[in-house]
Structures are given as C-alpha cells and as structure tokens.
C-alpha cells in the first residue's frame, strides 16, 4: 500500500469520494492540507474571498448537480465564518462536507491562536461531525462523512482535523474504504407496504385532492415519478419554495407555489382539499400559517425520509417514511397494476372550482399588479422579462427578500435543480456565491442571480472570485433602495415606521464598482429600456454583468398570508384587498 501523509490522505480521500471542486480559504492550521492540494490536480480548489461564500458556493453546486459540495477552511475565524453557510445547507438538507483545520492536538483547549471548538460551534447545524485524531483514521472518516452527508435526509457534515494529524513528517498506508458501514446509521430504503396501500386507496377516493410537494422531491430526484403520479390522478400540484421545478411550472395542473406568498389558487385549494398528498415537505410555518387551522377538511398523507418530519407541526393521518422516489414509484406501480382510476366527475368539479380561483385572483391569468411605465418599473415585470429573455431555461439563484418571492412567483421552473435559494434559513448573501457554484458545475449554462441592493452587499466581495475563475454570472439587482421585505412588514404592521431599512443615499454606484472588478455594469431606470438591456446583458456570454434596475420602491409582495391566527385561505391580495 502507498504511504501518504495525513495532508495527502485528506486530499486523496476527497478525490476518491468524487470531489472535483473544493471551495475554500487557507490559513495556519490548514497549511499542511493546502500544501498537499498544491501537489496534485484531481481536486480543483476555488479561492473565495470569505469563507461564508465557500459554503454557499459548495451548497449551490450540490443543489444544481446532486453531488456532495466540498469546503476547506482553516481553524478559528475560518471555521466560524463558514457556520452561516453550514446552517443554510442544514436547513435545506443539502449534502455538503466541510473540512476545517484545527490547532494541534496538544494545544486544543488551551485557547491557542485561532482556536475554536468547531465541532461544538457547528453542532446544532450539522447532520454530524467528526474530529480526526490519527492520520490512520482520515480516509475512513472522510468516507463516512460523504456517506452520511449524501444518504437519508442529506445534510452538512464537518470534519475537523488538527494540524499535527496532517503533518508531512508522518506517513501511513492509504486505502479508501469501498464500503462504509455505520451500525448506528441505517436510513430507510423503502416505504411501508401497508401504508402505501392505504394511501393509494385514499388517493383514489379523493374528490378534492392536492399534491403538496417540496424540496425532498428534488433531493430524491423524484420529479419524474411525482409528475407521472399527478397526471395519472389528474390532481392539482402545488410546490413549496424549496420544491419549485419538482413539478413543471408551466403545466396546466400546476397551481403555483403555496404558503405565505403562495398563489390564491394554491392556498385556497389547500384549504378546501379533502386529501393532501404531502411529499418531501416539512409543514414549515411559512407554508401552514396557523397550524391549528391548516386544511381543516383534509386527510393528510405524508411521505418523507425523515421520521422527525412526520407530525412535527401538523398531525398526519397516513405517514410513510422512506425515499420519495421509491415510494412514489410503488404508488404508481399499484395504480397501474390495479387499473382503478380516480373519481372523474368529482375531479372535473374540483378543477372547475380551481380554475374559477385562478380567474378571480390567480397570478398567471391576468396581471395582478399595476403596469410598469416610464420610470416606474414593477419588480414583477423584471422577473417576467428575465423569464422571457432567458427562455425560462436559466439557473436562477436568489438572495432573500422581496426579489426572492417575485422570482419564485414569476419565473416558472419546468425542471428541478434550476431554482437555487436559501429557503429554510433565509440567508441574505447567498445568491452571488451560489451563482458561482452553479456556474462552476455547468460552465456553459446561463446562470443569473436575482438579488436586491441589500442582499448583494452581504457577499459582494465574491465579484473578485468571479474574475479569477472566469465565472460569467449575471446579476439582476432589483434596486428599490430599501430593505424591501422588512419595509413591507413595517408598512403593514408598524404604521410605516421605517426603522433602519433605508440607506440615505449611501448606496454605491454599482456600475462603477463593476468596472473596478473588470465586470460590466448596467443601469436601468426606464421600463422601455429593460428588455433590450437585458438581452444585451445575456448576450455578453463570457462576462459578469450587473444589471442595476431601479424598481418601484413602494411595491409589496402579494398574495400574503394574514397572520397571526390566519388559515391557509386568509390572504392579502393587494394593499387594500383581502380574502
């Protein structure tokens, strides 16, 4: 067997685990590992400008490809800077492995320079973590980390490696384990047959079914099964923010996103449903509104890989624990074999009702906002133009706030893994590094980051990384000169007292800033220029382009759930109109 140092083993094991790109930032405790990285070419390292961006980029790389994202940081501040990105991945169940350098073993606990208890600091936001204490254990630990990160309900895993464990002066035989077995970790691989049978029976009986599907469907690559099942049942489908693209956004059976900023038809249909098939979702508070008032007439079937998601906030009637793809396939097989079909008459009536809701207040049957004109550019129209110019086929990353909701509402994703956003944690600063991650995975793809002037400034230093690695992402900045979503809440609940949501003319000249980084900056202030300038933006295939688009400062995102104490169907439809 080959003799390698701990540093060499770390890099080799990453390569053997399938890592092609690793995002990171060097520092004292990680230097041995970085030296080993320098002497090979299997794993390509991308030097970010801040460790938070490394985790977001690796996370988005994982979201877009389905592979495990990889990150390498040093101890202390390197590790703590990565925590926000780890938490982001944790909340959205994204597979990621973070290697963090650590001070030498004998210095641990002594408040050494750049020492942080990374296993402790990250504990609440990781699926699991390890500290490796012997060079002999590195390969196996890394193999375990990748296994844990990518199986069951995926999530981030931290591997903390003290500096003396990776010293070049101590070499041990290297072998990457072919199989990983962890006796205390055996994720479910199949759903309970009896429960599946019961669920299918209920699906066939339902008169007002709704399929409520989420990020779990995308993580399990189960879009095909979901789509087939929905067609077979002729049931309406709503996706969560995390599930957009799991079911084609332009399909007739798609009734839009649900939840706080979901469509009128999706939220109303959920409220009136008699059966809900919940797949790969977790009944998040941004979906359910008041849990006690959630879907009062419905029996709920819930498919999820994670048993803790079942009946956590909303009691379900038929839980099925297991992988979405396998369980949905089992359901399809049963339906096909049995030859039974759902109640066509009842469904026709249900669709008539839903189409009525669509006509009345739906986002896609008529414009539900004022038109853009001259210097008044409506943010919704920016997303519609983006959709048109990119042919609905781009990878869209987003930050957090109004622009994120407008993108979720108006960019209709027909494929999974195209919509990359921080849904659970709601991390501002995610969008730009995420776009870099996607662009690194798909060098020829069109990647656009929909952002706002607030979010973009949280990781704007990464414009430099884009230059270094030639990552020609497009940045669509919905500039409303305010922290728009907070401002919306201040309008609605705090009598328009804009506490700390305005910048008082302190915003940078983004076009000039782009020039400093060697990128292209554009400013759009008139609606009639928007489409043409956006065409120009996307025609510059090998350049980073930043479109600074001045949108209506007073616009709100609607629909919006009435809260607290509202049900799914209680919504504001505009500033003055509510259900």
């Amino acid at each position: 067997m080959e003799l390698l140092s701990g540093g060499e083993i770390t890099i080799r094991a990453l390569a053997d685990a399938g890592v092609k790109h690793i995002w990171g930032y060097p520092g004292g405790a990680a230097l041995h590992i970085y030296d080993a990285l320098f002497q090979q070419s299997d794993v390509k390292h991308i030097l970010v400008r801040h460790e938070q961006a490394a985790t977001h980029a690796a996370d988005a790389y994982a979201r877009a490809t389905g592979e495990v994202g990889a990150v390498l940081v040093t101890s202390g501040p390197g590790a703590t800077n990565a925590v926000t990105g780890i938490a982001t991945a944790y909340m959205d169940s994204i597979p990621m492995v973070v290697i963090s350098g650590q001070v030498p073993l004998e210095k641990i606990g002594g408040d050494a320079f750049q020492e942080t208890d990374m296993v402790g600091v990250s504990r609440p936001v990781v699926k699991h973590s390890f500290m490796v204490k012997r060079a002999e254990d590195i390969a196996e630990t890394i193999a375990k980390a990748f296994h844990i990160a990518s199986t069951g309900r995926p999530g981030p895993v931290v591997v903390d490696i003290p500096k003396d464990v990776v010293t070049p002066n101590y070499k041990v035989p290297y072998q990457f384990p072919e199989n990983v077995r962890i006796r205390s970790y055996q994720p479910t691989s199949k759903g309970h047959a009896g429960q599946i049978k019961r669920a299918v029976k209920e699906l066939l009986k339902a008169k007002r079914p709704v399929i409520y599907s989420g990020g779990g469907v995308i993580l399990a690559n189960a879009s095909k099964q979901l789509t087939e099942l929905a067609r077979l049942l002729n049931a309406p489908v709503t996706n969560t923010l995390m599930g957009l693209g799991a079911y084609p956004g332009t399909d007739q059976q798609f009734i839009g996103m649900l939840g706080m900023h979901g469509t009128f038809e999706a939220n109303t249909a959920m409220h009136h449903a008699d059966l809900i098939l919940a797949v790969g979702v977790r009944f998040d508070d941004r979906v359910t509104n008041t849990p006690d008032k959630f879907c009062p007439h419905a029996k709920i079937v819930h498919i999820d890989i994670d048993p803790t998601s079942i009946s956590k906030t909303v009691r379900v009637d038929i839980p099925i624990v297991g992988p979405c793809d396998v369980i949905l396939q089992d359901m399809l097989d049963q339906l096909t074999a049995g030859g039974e079909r759902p109640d066509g008459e009842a469904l026709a009536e249900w669709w008539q009702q839903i189409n009525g809701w669509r006509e009345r207040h739906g986002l896609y049957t008529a414009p539900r906002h004022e038109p853009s004109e001259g210097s008044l550019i409506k943010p919704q129209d920016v997303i519609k133009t983006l959709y048109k110019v990119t042919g609905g086929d781009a990878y869209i990353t987003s930050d957090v706030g109004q622009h994120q909701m407008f993108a979720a509402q108006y960019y209709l994703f027909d494929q999974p893994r195209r919509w990359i956003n921080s849904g659970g944690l709601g991390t501002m600063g995610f969008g730009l590094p995420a776009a870099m991650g996607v662009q690194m995975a798909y060098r020829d793809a069109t990647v656009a980051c929909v952002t706002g002037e607030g979010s973009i400034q949280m990781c704007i230093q990464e414009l430099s990384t884009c230059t270094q690695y030639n990552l020609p992402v497009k940045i669509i900045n919905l500039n409303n000169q305010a922290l728009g979503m907070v401002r919306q809440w201040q309008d609605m609940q705090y009598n328009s007292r804009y506490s700390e949501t305005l910048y008082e003319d302190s915003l940078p000249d983004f076009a000039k800033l782009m020039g400093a980084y060697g990128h292209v900056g554009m400013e759009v202030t008139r609606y009639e220029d928007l489409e043409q300038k956006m065409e120009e933006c996307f025609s510059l295939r090998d350049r980073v382009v930043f479109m600074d688009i001045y949108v209506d400062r007073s616009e709100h995102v609607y629909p919006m759930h009435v809260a607290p104490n509202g049900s799914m169907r209680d919504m504001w439809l505009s500033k003055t109109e509510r259900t």
Partner: protein
Amino acid sequence: MKRIISVLMENEPGALSRVVGLFAQRGYNIDTLTVAPTEDNTLSRLTLTTQGNDQVIEQITKQLHKLIDVVKVNDLTNGSHLERELMLIKVRAKGEERAEIQRCADIFRGQIVDVGAGVYTIQLVGDSTKLDAFIDALGDTRILEVVRSGISGIARGEKSMRL
C-alpha cells in the same frame, strides 16, 4: 407526565453533548440523566427522564434516534420496567440523634457508609419516590448535603436492549 427514556449509543467523545444539545436546542426538559459505558466498551447506556405529552415524547424519541451516534432508543414508560436511583446523603448526627438516624436508615434499607464525629453519610438505593420519602423523614434541619445519581432504568422480563 414523567417519561423514562433509554438510549444506547456509541461510546464516542462528543456523543453525550449531542444528546444534551438536542434537548437544549429543541426546548425539551431533562429532569435527570445518567450515562456510563456498558459491558461492551464501545457502547454507552444513557437513561434520561423528561416530561411531555405524547406528541412531544414522540418527537424526542425520533430526534434522539436521528442522531448518528445513537444506536437504539426505548421509551421505558411504555412497558413494565425497573427504575433505581442511588443517593448519598450527609446528615448532622450528634448524641441521641445518631441512634434515631440509624433506625430511620434501617427502615428505608439505607446503609451508613461513612461516620464522622458529628456526621453520618448514608447510602440509599430505590426508586425516586423512596429517596424523596427518606429526605422528608430526616427533615431539613439535619441534612448537610445530598447527591443523587439520577434514574437508571431497565425493562422487566425477557426484553433486552442490545445490538
């Protein structure tokens, strides 16, 4: 209602902090907690007692099970089980008190395990209510120090919790 949950987990550094962290993070209470390695050195057995309705307990057991280091979780309260707690209690014991305290300890089947000029240290094993009763019987004025181990539990009969 009080629940006794048994956990079999990897005897690894950090495993206990994951269990304790889970309770803190999710807002569950821990009333007592005991942990030690088993006859198999690679495994630790942990018993904890907590309060909660069925839904909370269901979440607690599922969340515990989700921890990678946890091998098995069992809510002992669901079946017939034994629970024991060890207490060491140091009391002031002078003159005539000494005989009285010894009698009281005998009634509760406690043992005096250390004797000083003015103090007794008594060891008592039993379920928690028995330990509480002994403390009441001695009276506050005499007690100098109390150490309780927290509850250890095991299911009755043939059922056993192992790999």
